[in-house]
């Protein structure tokens, strides 16, 4: 008997008992629906957790550390490095060797300054990241909301602010370009005094303003532009400035790590972290390999994505386990329906055999029926799981907008492998449930079966 005919016959039989078929499919649908909902949550959460890590700026960046530093950062087990094994020193000589690797845009010691900033009578804390002019790729230029980045000519005490910060302190991104930012040490934030002014605010009380202590050491930065902080890190507050400027500021207002040589550690003239900026994303693994060959440890965004990926594999396994419980129940439902069908149709099986059906034809007919139930239930379950996810996503979006005034995330996401996998699993599981009833039908003795009323 041809497969198409087997399927057609199975479908016709299922249509005969619409309610029973529907109820059995419903059992599968509940199991698959739960599985799909839970796994789409895992996919959604993983996406939410990693979407900020996939910006071009992070993807084209290799952080080079001494081997012992990496062990501290990534955990001893994953690095497999003894704390004493530091490898070669991460110094200017090392940076020069990185700069010679083909495909490297620029290698530079990571520089970050944590400061207090005053702009247009507003005081905030400010993280300033030092970026060499060479490392300002197109992705930086594309992210600009207003103004421009520095270049070889325009440099020195300049900065580009993140749009998130500018909006938080209530300034217009266009207006702020060309203004001055007064930076001072991080502790200075607490030295500003709050004072009443003569002007009255809308509530009738006098407006207050912050007054800078007169003896505060400051440095002035010119705002060149504002970049879209969502492009680099959502809601981020890291401002960009030329590498030399940040190195200088971090030495003058020490807090966090500067671009200069490490002081707390024994080895003189070494850096804790060196950033290697790669021009072409596709070359990153090759370059990463070369740096490792030189004896250094590295962290790329892929390492972090990998750790997150492992974590989410565990999450998916756990959620998948709970989601599968319903499916196990559905197996019994299908097996029950199929055993009933075999008993009910004993005579029909006898007729089929009398007409020349082989045992395997009969077995296939019943397996096809079970698989069709599984397939239909799988479709229903995927549809149901999608619906639940969509409703919860909409609810989350509503909550985020109303309560938090921000954008929501898609916490439930379906992927094509999840859809196909869920339907495939439903069909497979149904086939497993159908094995015993189908074998029982195939074994029936035709003479005995034809005697059954």
């Amino acid at each position, binding site marked *: *008997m*041809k497969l198409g*005919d087997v399927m057609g*016959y199975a479908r*016709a*039989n299922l*249509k*005969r008992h619409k309610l029973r078929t529907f109820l059995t499919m419903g059992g599968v649908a509940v199991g698959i629906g739960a599985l799909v909902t839970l796994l789409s949550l895992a996919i959604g959460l993983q996406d939410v957790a990693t979407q900020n890590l996939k910006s071009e700026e992070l993807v084209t960046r290799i952080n080079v550390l001494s081997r012992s530093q990496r062990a501290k950062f990534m955990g001893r087990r994953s690095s497999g490095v003894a704390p004493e094994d530091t490898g070669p020193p991460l110094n200017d000589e090392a940076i020069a060797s990185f700069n010679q690797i083909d495909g490297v845009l620029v290698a530079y010691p990571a520089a970050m300054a944590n400061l207090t900033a005053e702009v247009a009578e507003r005081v905030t804390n400010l993280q300033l990241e030092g970026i060499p002019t060479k490392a300002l790729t197109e992705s930086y230029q594309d992210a600009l909301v207003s103004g421009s980045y520095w270049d070889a000519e325009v440099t020195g005490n300049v900065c580009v602010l993140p749009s998130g910060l500018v909006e938080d302190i209530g300034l217009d991104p266009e207006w702020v370009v060309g203004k001055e930012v007064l930076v001072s040490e991080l502790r200075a934030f607490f030295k500003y005094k709050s004072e009443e002014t003569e002007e009255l605010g809308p509530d009738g009380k006098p407006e207050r303003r912050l007054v800078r202590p007169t003896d505060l050491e400051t440095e002035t930065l010119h705002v060149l532009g504002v970049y879209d902080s969502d492009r680099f890190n959502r809601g981020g507050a890291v401002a960009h400035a030329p590498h030399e400027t940040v190195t200088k500021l971090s030495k003058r207002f020490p807090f966090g790590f500067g671009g200069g040589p490490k002081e707390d550690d024994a080895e003189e003239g070494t850096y804790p972290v060196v950033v290697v900026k790669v021009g072409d994303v596709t070359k990153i693994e090759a370059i990463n390999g070369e740096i490792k060959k030189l004896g250094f440890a590295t962290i790329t965004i892929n390492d972090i994505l990998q750790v997150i990926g492992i974590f989410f594999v565990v999450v998916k396994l756990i959620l998948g386990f709970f989601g599968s419980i319903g499916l196990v129940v559905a197996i019994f439902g299908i097996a029950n329906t199929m055993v009933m069908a075999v008993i009910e149709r004993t*005579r*029909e099986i*006898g*007729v*089929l*055999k*009398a*007409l*020349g*059906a*082989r*045992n*395997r*034809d009969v077995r296939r007919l019943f397996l096809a029926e079970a698989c069709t139930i599984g397939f239909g239930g799988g479709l229903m379950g995927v549809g149901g799981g999608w619906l639940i996810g969509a409703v919860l996503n909409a609810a989350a979006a509503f909550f985020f907008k109303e309560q938090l005034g921000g954008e929501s995330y898609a916490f439930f996401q379906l992927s094509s492998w999840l859809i196909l996998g869920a339907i495939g699993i439903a069909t497979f599981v149904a086939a497993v449930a159908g094995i015993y009833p189908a074998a029982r039908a195939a074994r029936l003795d*035709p*003479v005995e079966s*034809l005697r059954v009323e």
Partner: protein
Amino acid sequence: MALLELVDVRRSYRFGDAEVRALDGVSFEIESGSFVGVIGRSGSGKSTLLNILGGLDRPTSGHVKVEGAVLSTSSSDKLAAYRREVVGFVFQSFNLIPHLTSLENVALPLALQGVSKAERSERATKLLEKVGLAKRMGHKPTELSGGERQRVAIARALVNEPHLLLCDEPTGNLDSKTADEIMGMLTALNREGRTVILVTHDREQANRYSKRLLILADGKLEEDLRLDGPDAPAVAPPPSPTVNPGPAPAGEEPGA
């Protein structure tokens, strides 16, 4: 040449310690093109004999040969192939598949053979026209009368062009007028050259239509009667009224 040949066929069943001998050493040959009636009381072994001839059951001992092939020792797949290609069954209770239309029921044996849908439909249609059910093709068995159902069943039994038509009390559930129609149809098929074996407990019916009569009792072949001399040739003339008393079947193809 003998179409089928039985040599000392025995079939016994065990019920605990008791052994029931449904067939107890039956031997005979049947020529191609004959119309053989098998009669006997219930329990005489006639159904068991029919099941063994149809490849639904195997004898406990003895040999069954059909067209030179030994059925008694064939695998279940070989027996299924034999049922698909050589035999057509007509049952007392019709045994149509209730959820299939007449056309689908008739086409079912062809589906089991793996024949394409278009050819299946064409051949089944022709047969339903032949049995006079051209207007009933889309009807399900519950929408048909008993006689119509049996005609669908006959069409189904013929669709695989069987050499051997096995009929188990085909008129047992029908009124006498319809029964005559069905018997007329079987006679006509026999005249076309098909070998017909008719199992019945109705001695009169067997006498009227058969050319040869096998009488079973207690699992043994009690009598083997030739009703019109030696078996007729493949395409036999209509049975003569002197040999087959009683009303001859009204039309060759009722309803056509």
